[in-house]
């Protein structure tokens, strides 16, 4: 088994954190993982993205030519990556700021208003964690417990309130997408 996922959005939306936290969770679950960030002469407000591969065997290439999952936090990312997604793949999009929808009819798409939900929770910065709640529920790659534990260990020495708001945000995203 091998899964590949691309996370993409504006720099500052926490897309690299989404990728590292998933990779960390999958590692804790005993999987082989690779995490590959986009890097380069990026400009402020430009796009950032990363690719996570998760497998039960050695991973050859950390690049995803046909990702199984795509998570887009802004509209340019949707246009850049939607046609790479494998047939029967899954797209998660941040419907708070993306008014367009995927033009693909052969993929499953979930529109999650994670920006609005974050606003309701009183912290717009947790939009990425809300999206991860939806992603973890639908992908089932790791359990919520393992994911949240990984998230906490990555956030490390940050303030105590952070773990709490992250848990709330995760639960909100998890509950938003229906079974």
């Amino acid at each position, binding site marked *: 088994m091998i899964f590949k996922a691309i996370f993409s959005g504006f720099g500052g939306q926490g897309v690299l954190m989404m990728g590292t936290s998933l990779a960390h969770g999958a590692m804790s679950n005993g999987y*082989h*993982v690779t995490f590959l960030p986009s890097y*380069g002469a990026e400009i402020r407000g430009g796009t950032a993205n990363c690719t996570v591969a998760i497998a039960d065997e050695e991973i050859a290439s950390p690049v995803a030519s046909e990702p199984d999952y795509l998570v887009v936090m802004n509209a340019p990312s949707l246009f850049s990556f939607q046609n790479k997604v494998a047939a029967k793949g899954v797209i998660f999009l941040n419907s708070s700021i993306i008014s367009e929808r995927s033009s693909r009819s052969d993929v499953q798409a979930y529109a999650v208003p994670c920006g609005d939900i974050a606003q309701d929770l009183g912290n717009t910065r947790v939009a990425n964690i809300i999206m991860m709640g939806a992603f973890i529920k639908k992908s089932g790659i790791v359990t919520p417990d393992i994911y949240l534990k990984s998230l906490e260990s990555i956030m490390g020495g940050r303030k105590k309130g952070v773990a709490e708001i992250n848990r709330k945000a995760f639960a909100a995203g998890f509950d938003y997408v229906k079974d």
Partner: protein
Amino acid sequence: MNKTLMSGNHVIGEASIRAGCHFYAGYPITPQNELTEYMSEHMRSNEGRVFIQAESEISAINMIAGAAAAGARVMTSSSSPGMSLKQEGISSMAACELPGVIVNIMRGGPGLGNIRPAQGDYFQATRGGGHGDYRTIVLAPATCQELADLTMDAFDFADKYRTPVMILADGMMGQMMEPVIFKKPTPRQYPEKFMLRGAGTGKSKFIRALLLDPIDAEEHNWKLARKYEVITKNETLCEEYNVEDADMVIVAYGTSARIAKGAIKRLRDNGMKVGLFRPITLWPFPEQKLRALSAKIKNFFVFELSTGQMLDDVRLALQGYAHIDFHGRPGGAVPTPAELTNVIARVYNKND
């Protein structure tokens, strides 16, 4: 043992600190910036360690040469254009027989090129790079775990043979995160007689490479050459993957070897018996082991992120005993396993 999820650049930094790297000097350049950054933060939390952000790559290499002469475990790092600047210093370290680890996280070239992963510095790394008759041991890891292990080994090779050792990886290896486990480093074995520690009341010592008498210089060159022969005999490393029943063997290193492994899975699913020969030491090149394969296998396929550099070493190793095909993507272009699968499938069926 605990697995840690770390990027390649950070892995090199952490492994070097655990191996007792005492002095690091570097100058920023993408895609190895995170290594210099890691060293700046973590060297200072270890007592007695020194981190210097030098004013240039040339300064950095000469700083580590000086620190190595004084007996410190040393490392510097850069990426392709910066490595070109370091060459005079590397030649000098080889001539002075100074141990040190030099990391090249390759990017697209020639010239300033770009910052994407590439393998165009193979010739520069394995042929000496600087002037004069010298060699550097060149290690080519393909996973973050191997980066951790080989960084520690690099320090031991450097001390054992009193020579600069290069770790040759690329932007993909530097940026990618994978889980790693750090092994326990072996205690350093480096005799004090090679260090400049101040003469005190004893006889003064010199470390220098300026040998104006040609007979002295010739003798020194032959002494180095004999050392390189010993290294060639004893220190080759390689990985063989699925070669037992193979009709064709891909020869690739580092990132391109990973892509090749992905292609091999697809090719085998389609009934094509393809294997991989992955040199881990690029110098010394695992020539004997590759040639041994040619007793049974008659088709080899070299794949590099360059226009064909290691290809020369494969030709030298196979000496015409087998047919060689080549696929290269220079300048920072990184193909997918799917692309390589298609290219190899065409050649495989043609040679069949």
